[in-house]
């Protein structure tokens, strides 16, 4: 599938999912941060964010689930997505995050949300420079991902695109097991297909082909790379 042109609705609030802002901090530090930022306990149905909020703040969902929705022309709600614990949502331009236009967020069940304003983030970076380093790593990875995605989309075939993405995911999320490197990125086939710019059907076909060739095993939401060397060759476009 060729990617349709970007549209506001296609932008995801969850772009920051992979960012672990607090990586490298001790439990005591994180505890201290918890005290320094606004931690809100939300009841089911309570609003967490709205288009009227001041810009440039992020919410870290510590507990519970959040429903993000917009109002449609007939005055009804249209649910855009449901986010689970651990998700960072918001529109902090500093982190390369864009606001989903006119989106509201409310708690689906009893939730705890940690909200960080730009001022608070600045203070946190001064006190815990590792947070600044994490932000820089995140941004530089996004930049290099974007550059490589452009190149990959333009030139590589689906098999090569899949191989590249798997090699990349294995480096980031891979766990060594007896059978090979297991990737627990919790990606659905749809999400993986979108990442490599193809259809779910084509992805399923390509995965089946890789499995037949002994390159990987695939179970629900989990891929185990069995022949990393050969997969890396395909990723480099040496043969497919």
């Amino acid at each position, binding site marked *: *599938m*060729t*990617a*349709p042109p970007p*549209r*506001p*609705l*296609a932008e*995801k*609030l969850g772009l920051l999912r992979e960012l672990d802002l607090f990586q490298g901090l001790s439990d005591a530090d994180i505890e201290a941060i918890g005290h320094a930022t606004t931690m809100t306990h939300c009841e089911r149905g309570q609003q967490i964010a709205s288009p009227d909020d001041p810009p440039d703040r992020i919410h870290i969902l510590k507990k519970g689930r959040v*429903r*993000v*929705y917009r109002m*449609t*022309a*007939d005055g*009804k*709600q*249209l*649910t*855009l*997505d*449901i986010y689970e614990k651990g998700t960072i949502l918001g529109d902090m331009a500093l982190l390369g995050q864009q606001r989903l236009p006119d989106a509201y967020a409310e708690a689906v069940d009893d939730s705890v949300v940690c909200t960080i304003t730009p001022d608070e983030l600045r203070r946190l970076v001064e006190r815990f420079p590792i947070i600044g380093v994490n932000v820089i790593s995140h941004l530089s990875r996004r930049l290099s991902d974007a550059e490589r995605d452009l190149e990959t989309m333009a030139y590589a*075939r*689906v098999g090569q695109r899949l191989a590249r993405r798997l090699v990349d995911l294995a480096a980031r999320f891979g766990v060594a097991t007896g059978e090979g490197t297991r990737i627990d990125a919790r990606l659905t086939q*749809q999400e993986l*297909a*979108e990442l490599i710019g*193809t*259809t*779910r*059907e*084509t992805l*399923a*076909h390509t995965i*089946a082909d890789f499995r037949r060739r002994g390159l990987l095993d695939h179970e629900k939401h989990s891929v185990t790379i069995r022949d990393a060397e050969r997969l890396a060759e395909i990723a480099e476009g040496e043969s497919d």
Partner: protein
Amino acid sequence: MSTAATGVAHATPRARTTDGAEVPAVSAAQMAEVDRLAVEEFGIDLLQMMEQAGSHLAELARRLLGGDLRGKRIVVAVGPGNNGGGGLVAARHLADRGATVRSVLSRPALRLSDAGRHQLATLLAMEVSCCVATFDLDDVELADVLGGADLVIDALLGYSSSGAPRDEIGRVVEAIEAAGRPVLSLDLPSGLDADTGDVAEPAIRAMATMTLALPKTGLLSADGPGRVGDLYLADIGLPTALYRRLGLDVGTPFATGRIVPLAISA
């Protein structure tokens, strides 16, 4: 890829159009290969195919509803994949042709495929009613919406899904079945296995099914014929040359029209 590798069997069930032309049925794996070739080798992108699928689906709905869409209430049940995207295209055409359309998504909007989100954005700009089952409609409201429909379009699951419809999708399938209104399924009734024709629980029992490009073997086997209702084949613009690459002799099923009735070949 060779035909052997994609599993073309000689005992493939066949269907016949009203003018007697035989059309081979394909497995889900073969259809995935057809889609892949269309996009990668023939430059026919997904949005092109989806547009034709949805526009034909709206046209077939018009015929099934007596020829005039004005004032007809149609609910389009939309799955997260590209089958759902086709349903959203149909919703656009139906609304623009005078029907009162309500799109009911089975999962949150951003979980739709890229192409599905593209179609949804257009519908929202047109101010066509769209909501998500489970989150925006409770069970009673969903039953009311479905119960008041002149026609329900089932665009929940396509040929690439297998097993019983689960979670939110399963709930929508159950609600459609409970409502007992006439259902037009896109590609195949949700819950029917595209390869074997085995029916899952829950599954849609359609009044009519419009399958795309080529019939899937499951429509013609096992429980399939009892679930599809009247079976139609619709043209999404895939060239004969593409089928030839896969060793499929498809002929010219659309010589007399772009939506043709299909009967199972003896």
